[in-house]
């Protein structure tokens, strides 16, 4: 079952998504994993788990993605999910100022409570609802119907904050797919080599084969250099 065509080293990275309710966490994951978008996605209860691999030129990163529920009261469950996470995507909604506040809270919590060295990316989602969304949208039908600019949080504001806290920063649209893959690739590149562990043994991949999820197996030697290029 081991992929013989993957001489590159591979490692799994646990990634958790946090953010206010209905900012598009699940949609980002769905776009990344299945390159799909659903208008009315059921709210995540507790958390959802998905995997997706990301091929860098020199290695393969398999993301184990924990997509959490956004409602405030589910916050107390979050530690269960971000436990041992090496990366986190903190998502806010570009059109909703409160969601950035909540995002900041999450960043603060992660910085204090999560594993040290966790890579955090701040992601402003729903770019398709803003003016710059339509133009930049990589995918087809970007929010053409919304001619108005619903943006409430400027790029500068969020970016400044992200720089202060040393976070990766992106503005995305799960709907159009704009910038989504880039977020994950950037995270993959930012994960320090040292914190990578090799993927789990054959047992894991055996089980994984039952699912449609892509899994790569590898125990090859590690290549220290990491470059761009996530093929998903």
């Amino acid at each position, binding site marked *: 079952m081991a992929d013989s065509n993957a001489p590159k080293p591979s490692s799994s990275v646990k990634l958790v998504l946090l953010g206010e309710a209905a900012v598009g966490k699940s949609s980002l994951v769905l776009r990344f994993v299945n390159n799909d978008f659903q208008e009315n996605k059921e709210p995540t209860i507790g958390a959802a788990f998905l995997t997706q691999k990301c091929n860098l030129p020199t290695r393969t990163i398999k993301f184990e993605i924990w997509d959490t529920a956004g409602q405030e009261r589910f916050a*107390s469950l979050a530690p269960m999910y971000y436990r041992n996470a090496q990366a986190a995507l903190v998502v806010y909604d570009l059109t909703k100022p409160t969601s950035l506040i909540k995002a900041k809270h999450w960043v*603060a*919590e992660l910085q204090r409570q999560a594993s040290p060295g966790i890579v955090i990316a701040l992601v402003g989602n729903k770019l398709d609802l803003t003016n710059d969304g339509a133009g930049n949208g990589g995918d087809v039908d970007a929010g053409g119907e919304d001619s108005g600019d619903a943006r409430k949080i400027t790029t500068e504001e969020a970016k400044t904050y992200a720089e202060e806290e040393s976070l990766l920063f992106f503005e995305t649209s799960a709907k159009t797919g704009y910038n989504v893959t880039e977020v994950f690739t950037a995270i993959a590149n930012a994960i320090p080599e040292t914190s990578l562990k090799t993927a789990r043994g054959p047992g*894991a991949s055996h089980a994984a084969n039952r699912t449609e999820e892509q899994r790569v197996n590898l125990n090859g030697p590690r290549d220290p250099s990491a470059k761009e290029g996530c093929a998903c």
Partner: protein
Amino acid sequence: MLNFSSFVQKAQQLLDPVQGLNLSESDRNPSKASLFQSQFRLPSSQHPLYEITAELTIPPANATQGDRDRDRGHQYAGKLHLSEAFLCFSTTPSSFLQSATTTTSSIFTGQTHGGGPGGNGFTFPLCSIRRVERLHSQNFQFALSLSTWNGISQDAAKEKDKKELREQRVTLQLAGNRQACERFCDGLKKGLRANVGMVAKLKKVTSECYSEYLLRPEDKKNAAPPDAGLGMLFKYPGDPKKLRDRAKMRLWAEYLRDNGRNTTLIRQPTFHKLIRVGLPNRLRGEMWELTSGSIYLRLESPTLYADTLAKFSGQESLAIDEIEKDLNRSLPEYPGFQSEEGIGRLRRVLTAYSWVNADVGYCQAMNIVVAALLIYMSEAQAFFLLSTLCDRLVPGYYSTTMYGTLLDQKVFESLVEKTMPILWEHLVKSDVQLSVVSLPWFLSLYINSMPLVFAFRVLDVFFVEGPKVLFQVGLAILRINGEELLDATDDGAFISVLKSYFARLDESAHPKSENPKLRAVTKFQELMVVAFKEFSGITHSSITELRLKNKDAVLSNIENFAKRTAIRNLGPDSKLLSNDELGALYDRFYTVLYERQQRDHIIKQEQARRNKNSRSRIAEASEGDNVEKGRVGLGPSTSLMDYDAFREFLAGMCKWAISDAPSTPQRDAFAEKDKGFYGSFRRADTVLSPWGAGPEPAEHEFLQRLFQKWDTDASSALTLQKVVSGLAGIKGKRDIMGAINYFFELHDDNGDGKVDREGILRMSEALLFLSRRGLEGTLSPSNSSVALGGENANGTQGDVQPVSERFLGSVSAFIRRCFEYADPDHPKNQDHSVREVQQKSESTLLDEPAGEELANPDAFAIGDDDDEDDDEDEDDEDDLLAMDSPTGSPKTAAKKFGNSPPTLQLNSTELTPGADVDTRRRVSKAQSEKANIALDPSNPLHITLPTFRMVVLADELLEQFFETSFPASFHIIEGLTTTPTSASSLTTFSSLGIGAGRAVNAALGTGQGTPGGGPAGGAGRGLRGVLDNIVTDGMRVAAEVRRRMEEAQKELEKNALPETQQQQRGAGAGGDDEEEDEDEDGGFDRASTRSGKGGGAAYRGDAERRSVRSSDRDLLTGADAEASDVALAGVGDGVEGGAASGAGSSSVNTAGGGGGGTGKVVGVEFDG
């Protein structure tokens, strides 16, 4: 640092030691009533009133039922229970009598194990019983024949229809002695009569049940069916053929025909079987409603749903925002929820529930559950069923902290560990967190984990048998997939195994079996069998037990998390405080709220016990059960602190915030609990005091100001955020200017940077209030006395005075200086509001409970004479003011406050006897003149922040007060560990009597005549009493000043004479001396005892005093004249005030002083 959860725990035990660990009242030590309610799924308004052993006979079914025993029908032996509105029969032998042991009242049989309608029998609302007849029978037995309204609609009650009807009739043979039977029958009669009025309601409620339509008489075949959910419009999920829906419907129709429908249904063994095979679509909603008991809630208040919607129509809330976000994503695959119709229903039910249960509001997953319910039932039915879910079936699942969800995950984990140790070990080894998978199962009742048709089958059983079903099914899932799960080594693999299992539930469990029957068994059927056979040992009580066991750990986890999060999100102000301080503040804040709610709850229960008649419906169901309401882990029902809670909060960490009332239990809640004394307090104790075991908080205007200041958005409630910001303003700045500014702003009512005359007095009152239990922090004792020493060469003050005592002097000086340096207002600016405010506050003062001892009027000489007009120039005046002037013989250690409103003649001093009354009078007159200038409301003045700052900095002690003492008086972390001082040890101006003993009292009583005795006596008896007096007196003075201002105003209005004012402006130089003399005379007192000590601090800047001028001009003659009257009046007030506040012995002194009759001495005491 204090540990919040241990507080809570202890607080619980304090309230009721037996309940220490209860999840709710009905758990560890459940009341008979709650057992009764939960067995029959009755509303919390129902209590077991009577019970009797009986035999139920159900007559032979219809002729069509050939296979039944025609002769005897069915007979069941069991117990008959009567509550306020229900008659219940069950073959379960449990007894709910008061005399019954807990064991007998929790004996359960059948699948439900007490978690639901167990055994065979019925639960009849009394209003569903149409007639009860006593049958003649042999053997002296009591036999009742019961007929119900089953199938009899109101218009069908006519004679001709009756024939067609098969009246439902059962017979009950009561077993018991005649008395017992008769008692029961009497109760039943009463109950029936009381419930007659409910019949119409019942008909309305049942008319919404599909069974009425299903069994409708022939002539109504065309009637429109009642709402049986969205499924009627959008089809029910699943293939009806595959589900064998028609066959099920026929079976149910037959069962209902024979055994009664909806409220009159009788449970026989077939009932449970029919449920296990899955309910037919159109009856599903009704049976859920019936088995869960939510129909009884609907019966209690049939219009609650519609009323709630109407009542809150158009209002907004956070919950509504959250609901809106999820409406479009609730079971989106079901066509009904892609339509406005379905979404509208979902919106209304969720919204209505968020209003009736604001504590829960809306939680994600409720949308999914309610959406599922709405497929099978009407909005109103879903509304009440949701309420039953949240309160009874899955309590705490959807609360703000979701403690129920987390708790049940722990319970589930321990069950897995117990029943599947190998799998458990594997999970631990692979570091897979079980709850990551299982949490959504429980939270959404499997609805979005399994295909809908199967999830509904689980729900069918869940509503009858209770929450244990969720555990049984969960365990069965793991058991069935055990092998594959053992291969999975990470979360992802683990999840995949289960995901694919759920997707194949409809497949054969044994596809390769030779046996076609076995091959036909689906995975879902297998699951149900495993769940209910293999895990039949999982019962309601075993779940309850495990919940209790895990509860504390879960709650404290949540609390720690909540605390951590809350503290982290407190905003920038919180950075000014240390983490420990924030933690302690958090604990204190919520402990106070929690304890107050507990007390409130108990008090309410008491009241409810008293007037049993008033019972509300749904709301009470939740409240009644949750004794821990308010605990953070359970989702605090409030996070807002009102003013009273604020006082209690401060009393936990500030000495000055504790009331001086003698009745106060002098215990500190925290210290006490830490010492473990709580065990000795009973519920009764706590109830007695509205403040619980803690000290009674003081009430003072300063507290109100502080509250208002902290309450930045004027919502009359403090959040933790506001408290932290407020305290950060005081404690966080750590610089004196910050503290001074803060204090100033606190008294700057309109934020214009000015504090008027009234405000100055308030400031001084506040200072006295804050210092009356002594000062804290680093104070350098030597400085002021050195300064004093310099001024008072005579050496009476050689000793270092106690700081608190000196502080009184400082306050006095403060007032004086404030007035000296005050800027005049522009007349036009003057505002009448000043006076209003002052009146208001005065009345408040009188109402205050705080007063300690009555004021001793002698403490202050408010001079009033109308006969003298000494002309003085400013210098004279200055001299006058200079109380500490060298002229002051040793005798004159008096503190005087020059033209301060004067009147603050704290006659601190002198022991020298021999008072010359005349002199005194003269002096005091002069004083009062000056005083009046300051007091003259027509001559408004104010101080600005710079002035205030200067005045404060001019006094070392005040400076220290702001620098360290005030901030240090908030013992955030350690709390008050020592017993707060009792009233008698307060630093006040009040009578010496307490501390100094009789001799002094006598001296005082006689007035100035024999002051000589005072000092010695006072000194001898201890400084304490003296100190007590000092502060109180100071306060008294301030109050008197206020009074005089009013008087002055009156007088002014009467006859304002400008010239007189001029004359009076300058008091005679001689007056100064006299004044001093007076002090000596007045010498009396305790003042003398404290004598020089206090005096000195006040008198540092002569120069300052000299600057007083223009504002002094407008002395009012009239006011002077008035003054003596005022003085007397003041005495009166003092007495009243003292009496009102329950002050002790000092009242005698006050009276005595007044009587002492110079008439000049006034004491009005205000808040201690």
